[in-house]
């Protein structure tokens, strides 16, 4: 297995996560390890998941189960910014469907598609636990944007395009 699959820094971060669990329960760190790998690589290729399985001494298919279960993990290359819009009930009642429609129109892409310039990818998300701020969307899994009306979307896109 290629130890250069991830940078030394990333491996250090993964080791820190592993240290949080008993030594024979390394695989508990799988979610963090996948997140760290994705931060570095942008997405999770088969080889990356294989590497993590090896690193955590767990079956590759078990890593794959986790990676496919959560939609924050990208199993395909994506644009520079991934916009995940919540479409669950509270957001939908507060207008997330319009948010989605506006985004689709503005970016000219549908869900799970990437703009031609490789800047944006649009994803459908599940409840992000901030229903009071509905409708919400998430930029690259990390930045939460609240009350996403059309103005707010324009502002956000302008900012990201810079």
């Amino acid at each position, binding site marked *: 297995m290629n130890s250069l699959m991830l940078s030394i820094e990333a491996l250090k971060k993964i080791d820190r996560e592993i240290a949080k669990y008993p030594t024979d329960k390394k695989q508990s760190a799988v979610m963090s390890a996948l997140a760290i790998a994705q931060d570095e690589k942008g997405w999770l290729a088969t080889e990356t998941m294989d590497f993590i399985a090896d690193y955590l001494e767990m*079956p*590759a298919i078990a890593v794959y189960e986790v990676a496919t279960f959560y939609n924050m993990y990208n199993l395909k290359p994506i644009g520079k910014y991934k916009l995940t819009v919540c479409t669950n009930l509270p957001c939908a009642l507060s207008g997330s469907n319009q948010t989605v429609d506006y985004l689709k129109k503005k970016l000219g892409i549908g869900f799970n598609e990437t703009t031609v310039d490789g800047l944006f990818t649009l994803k459908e998300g599940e409840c992000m636990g901030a229903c009071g701020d509905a409708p919400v969307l998430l930029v690259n899994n990390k930045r939460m944007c609240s009350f996403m009306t059309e103005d707010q979307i324009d502002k956000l896109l302008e900012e990201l395009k810079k």
Partner: protein
Amino acid sequence: MINIEIDGKQVAVAQGSTVMDAAKQVGIYIPHFCYHKKLSIAANCRMCLVEVEKAPKPLPACATPVSEGMKVSTHSQQAVTAQKGVMEFLLINHPLDCPICDQGGECQLQDLAVGYGSSGSRYQEAKRAVTNKNLGPLISTDMTRCIHCTRCVRFGQEIAGIMELGMAGRGEHSEILTFVGKTVDSELSGNVIDLCPVGALVSKPFRYSARTWELSRRKSISPHCGLGSNLVVQVKNNRVMRVLPRENEAVNECWLSDKDRFSYEGLNSGDRLTIPMIRKSGEWQTCGWQEALAFTAEGIKNVINKYGAQSIGALGSAHSTLEELYLLQKLMRRLGSHNIDHRVRQSNFRADVISQGVPWLGIQIAEVSQLKSILIIGSTLRKDHPLLAQRIRQAVKQGAQLSVINPIGDDLFTKLAYQTIVAPSAMLNAVLQVLKAVAEIKNIPISEQIASAVKQINISESARGMANSLIEHSPSAVFLGNIAQHHPHYADLFSAIQAISEITGAKFGVLGEAANSVGAYSVGVVPWDVRAESANKTESRKSGLNAGQMLGLGVSEEESACSAYILLNLEPELDSYDTRRASQVINRAEFVVSLNSYKGNIPDYADVILPVSPFTETSGTFVNTEGRIQSFQGVVSPLGETRPAWKVLRVLGNLLQLEGFDYDSSEQIRAEIISDKEEFVQNLNNSLDVLSIKDFDQKGSEVERIGEIPIYQADPIVRRAISLQKTHDAAPPMAFASSALLNKAGILAGETVRINQQNEEIQLAISVDDNLPDDCIRLACAHPQISRLGTMFGEIKLEKL
């Protein structure tokens, strides 16, 4: 004990039991899919919902622990509504096309839908479709039918020890699959076909060839590994269509290895012999039985007249039945020859004159699960004994410590306490280290005869660990695997483990190589008459030639050990320790009689070919490695002119005017062999009279061969099972060596190299396996492409092309 009430019936169950267990105890059936008694509880199908008094909603019986005074109803209004609801949900995405599904007629979902579902569907929307996966040559998929019970996933994790299948995705997007593009390669993989409650995973070889209700079910016993798995053989139009496990908790539980399950394809192979053949003035011709047997008797008589009875040798495969093997040795002994053996892959027979009885497992198979410390010496355990490996895996899960002394470092899919991987020639030293360590720890002197062997030995850390483990964790056991049994130091290894056992109190034994290894030994398919042993044991045991001698070990190249051979179910060019020598001596013999089910290369060296029945076409008995006597009936009638070997040997005995060959049935022969079961089993004894270790300071050669028998090359039937031959385990042979050895020779991994052994050479690709000792080449035997090379162990040369 906890008292609960199920459907008005009182039942007392152990603490920690579930409602499902309790219901089973009183014979109440609760419908279920994901629950399986041998697997962990998942509670994800929700089919087993029952009403529990005072619980606000229905509870899953499989995951609800019992508590005192609990009142459960499985048929109340609430329970029935729940079950009906679950069934409706399960059928939403499941295709309702049972008539075209291979599982139809033996489908749990179909059965339970009839019992617990509605008569029609209210679902109008589109159903989801899931792409099929390629899981390899044994398992066929129809993934749209999957109901996500995850039995197959849990089987891999918990029983097979390797998670090859998993459930990817979430909710409606869940799918059972392997990691991107991999196949399922476990040697136990076929069990997921039985476990799958729907038609998602079905048998690829059997698919669409018959309907379950057209098949008649007949009991049988597996002819392959020493376990003696119990089988249900399913037959249609006098043809074996498939093989399923017959549950026997003491032997195979509810599992079967892929070898036992799929080898039946070999029974219908095009290579089957159907008519006797004789070689007359160099030309093969088919003939009737009478002529063939007369020709055989004549040939044998000629050889006896010319060279004496001592010039005849007989070799019987331990995959043959007890009755056949018994008659073969009776025939030989009545002819006046003790040259008979079944241990064709053994190379060291020094223990013959000192063994006290028939080597066997040393404990009951079921007891293996209870062991707390296990030491295995020389074994490709998972491949040679798939289900025994599974039991050991369960024992380790229950806290047992497993240690291994082996020339190979294959993953056993379980936790190892200690592991010593050394070249074959260093294995004895590794075992002696353990012996010295146990003696030191227990402060018991090693018996005098072998004390000198351990004098110069330094104890390694892992040897001390193994010693401690055997002493501190009881019950413990030491087993010799197939590699140890074929090993040129077999008798020394045996003496050493007996000494270890005497000091530690650990049980010891051998893992039986073939279905009838214990049986063959018990009925006297060894060079001395087990059943009429004279007072002078050493002399009487030297009376005949052993398999090694008969197959050319220790005999000069020019001579043949015997002038005539009788071979029973054996292909000596594959089934022997030194395949090169074996071919030579058999080719050189004047008269060779081969009783076999398959043609193979037999016409090249035989003079008479007598087509005999495989295990499905004759009644017979196998004695498994724990000494369990298991008889079976033929399940189909013999193919063409094929006859059961016991009948052939009986007539041959008559034609040779020998006494005592008048049997009407195999049962009669069996009665003669086993008059008293107790007495028969008493002959099982691993102990040696005197311990002796001879070659303890022998040096190995520069590069040694590690020759194991590949799982799907082990006997004539499995060699011809087409689907098994397409699996990963049956891939074309390859050599393996550590990267250190390859670097030294300047060879790149994957390169084709020249491999030379005893002046024969072959060319094949070599690959890296860094779990091997540095000075070894792992190169499987029993393969047509490799059988030109010689012994399974010993010197081998590697050259760059």
